[in-house]
C-alpha cells in the first residue's frame, strides 16, 4: 500500500508541478506583454520611412498613454533578419520596415491602439501598431490548455488513488472479517472499528506520501534545472515560486486525507451491512 500511494503522490506532484510551471509561464508572458506594442513603418522608400519613423516617435513620445518607446536601430533589425535574408545588404532584396518598441502605461487594448493609429494617420500613414500579446495568444491558449490537462490528470490520479485505497480497505476487511465480527459482537461501534482501519491506512499513506513527495519533488526540480539550462527567455519564466513548492508539499497531505476518508467510508459502508 505505501508504494501505491508513493507512486500516486509522485505522479500528482509531477503533474501539479508541471501545471504550476505552465501557469507561471503564461502569467509572466501575459504580464510582460500586456502593455507592449510594436509599431512598424512599412514603407519601401528609405527616406520616407525614416521621416515617418521620426514623426511617429515624436508624436508618441508626447502621448500620455506611452510610458516608454525605443526606436529599434535599423542595424539591429537587419541583424534579426540575417538568418533569413543573409548578410548582403538585405535592404536591396526586400524593403525592411522600421520598428518602434512601445511600452504603454496600461494594457495595450484595442481602443488605445486605435487612438494611437488615428494620431499617426496624418504624419506617418505607413505606421502599423500591433499589441505584442496578440502574437502570443495561440501560445498562451495552448499553455492554458496544458494547465487544464494537468488539472485533469491530478483529478484522475486522485480518483485512482482513492480506488486503490478502497480495494485495499476491502481486502483488509475480508482478511480481518473474523476479528471485526468479534469486536462488533463485544460491543465495538462502527466508528471504533473504522478507526482501527483509519490508523493503519494513515500510517501507510503517511509513509507513501512522504516517499512520493521526495520522488516527485526531485523529478520536478531536475526537470526545472534542465529547462533553466536551455536559457530561453520564455521557458525560464516557468520556474516554481516558494508558494508553488508549498502547494506541492500539500499534495501528500491531501493524499493522506483522501486515503483515510476513503478507508473510513469503505469500512463504514461494509459494517452497515451487518446488524
Amino acid at each position, binding site marked *: 500500500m505505501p508504494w501505491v500511494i508513493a507512486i500516486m503522490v509522485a505522479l500528482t506532484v509531477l503533474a501539479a508541478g508541471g501545471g504550476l510551471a505552465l501557469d507561471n509561464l503564461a502569467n509572466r508572458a501575459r504580464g510582460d506583454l500586456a502593455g507592449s506594442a510594436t509599431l512598424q513603418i512599412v514603407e519601401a522608400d528609405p527616406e520616407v520611412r525614416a521621416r515617418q519613423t521620426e514623426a511617429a516617435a515624436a508624436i508618441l513620445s508626447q502621448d500620455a498613454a506611452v510610458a516608454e518607446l525605443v526606436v529599434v536601430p535599423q542595424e539591429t533589425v537587419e541583424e534579426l533578419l540575417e538568418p533569413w535574408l543573409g548578410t548582403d545588404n538585405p535592404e536591396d532584396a526586400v524593403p525592411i520596415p522600421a520598428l518602434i518598441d512601445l511600452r504603454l502605461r496600461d494594457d495595450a487594448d484595442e481602443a488605445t491602439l486605435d487612438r494611437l493609429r488615428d494620431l499617426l494617420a496624418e504624419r506617418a500613414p505607413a505606421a502599423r501598431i500591433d499589441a505584442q500579446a496578440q502574437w502570443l495568444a495561440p501560445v498562451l491558449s495552448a499553455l492554458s490548455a496544458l494547465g487544464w490537462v494537468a488539472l485533469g490528470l491530478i483529478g484522475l490520479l486522485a480518483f485512482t488513488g482513492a480506488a486503490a485505497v478502497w480495494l485495499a480497505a476491502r481486502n483488509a476487511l475480508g482478511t480481518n472479517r*473474523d*476479528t471485526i465480527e*468479534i*469486536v462488533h*459482537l*463485544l*460491543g465495538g*461501534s462502527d466508528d*471504533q472499528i473504522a478507526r482501527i482501519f483509519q490508523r493503519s491506512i494513515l500510517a501507510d499513506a503517511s509513509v507513501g506520501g512522504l516517499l512520493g513527495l521526495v520522488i516527485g519533488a526531485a523529478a520536478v526540480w531536475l526537470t526545472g534545472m534542465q529547462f533553466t539550462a536551455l536559457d530561453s527567455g520564455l521557458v525560464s519564466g516557468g520556474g516554481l515560486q516558494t508558494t508553488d513548492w508549498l502547494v506541492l508539499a500539500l499534495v501528500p497531505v491531501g493524499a493522506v486525507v483522501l486515503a483515510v476518508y476513503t478507508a473510513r467510508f469503505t469500512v463504514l459502508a461494509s459494517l452497515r451491512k451487518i*446488524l
Partner: protein
Amino acid sequence: MSAPEEEIVQFDNVGLRYGTDREVLSNISFTLFPGRFYFLTGASGAGKTSLLKLLYLAQRPSRGAIRMFGTDVITLPRERLPAYRRRMGVVFQDFRLVDHLSAFDNVALPLRVAGVREADLHGPVSDMLEWVGLAQRADARPATLSGGEQQRVAIARAVIGRPDMLVADEPTGNVDPEMALKLIRLFEALNRLGTTVVVATHDVHLLRKVPDSLIMRLDKGMLSDPTGALRYPPRRVGVGQ
C-alpha cells in the same frame, strides 16, 4: 407484598427464519430475570444457537418483540446496539478468539472496546487470567493453547467486563468432564456476583450440577418450560400468524 422483579430479557412471540426457509424458531416467548442461572437445552439443530444469537444481538428476529434491559431492541437504531452488547458477555461455541492477539490481549479486548485506559487494564486482566488458571499463559497465542485453555480464555473475555448477562453456547462441549465441572463452577461464582447466566447445552448431566438453575427446552424451534421458569406466558400464540 414485595416489588415485582424487573426482567432483564423479554421475548414475545418471536419467530426467526433465514431467507425464505421455514422458521427455525417459532412463537418464542419468555422472560429472564436478573441474577438467575438458566440452562437452554435441546438436541442439536433445535435452534439453541439461533436463540442465543437473538439474545446477544447478532441477529434480528423475523417477527415478534424483544425487550432487553428495559428497551425494545428491535426498533432500536443499530448505532445504539453496541451499548447493549457491552452489557453482555458471550462465550461462543467455537471460542472466536483473535488469532493474532495473546491470551492477555484477547481477555483485554472488551475493556479496550469499552474505552478503559491501558494503565487500568493490566490489573483486572491479570486477575481474570489468574482466576481461570492461565496466568502463566498470558502471552501465549490462541494457536498454542489447548482446547480447554482456549475455552477458559473465551470465558475470561466474556466475564472481564462484569456483564449484566453472560451467554454461553455449549461452553463445555470441547472439554473433559472434570474441566466442564470446573467451568460451570466459574459460571456459578459469577452468577453469585449478580450476573444472569444463560448456558446452552445438550448435555443433560450438566443441568444437575447447578441445583438452582432454571431450564428452557427447545424442540424443533419451539420452547417449552419444564421447570416453570419462563414467567412470561405467550399472550398471542396462534393469533395473527
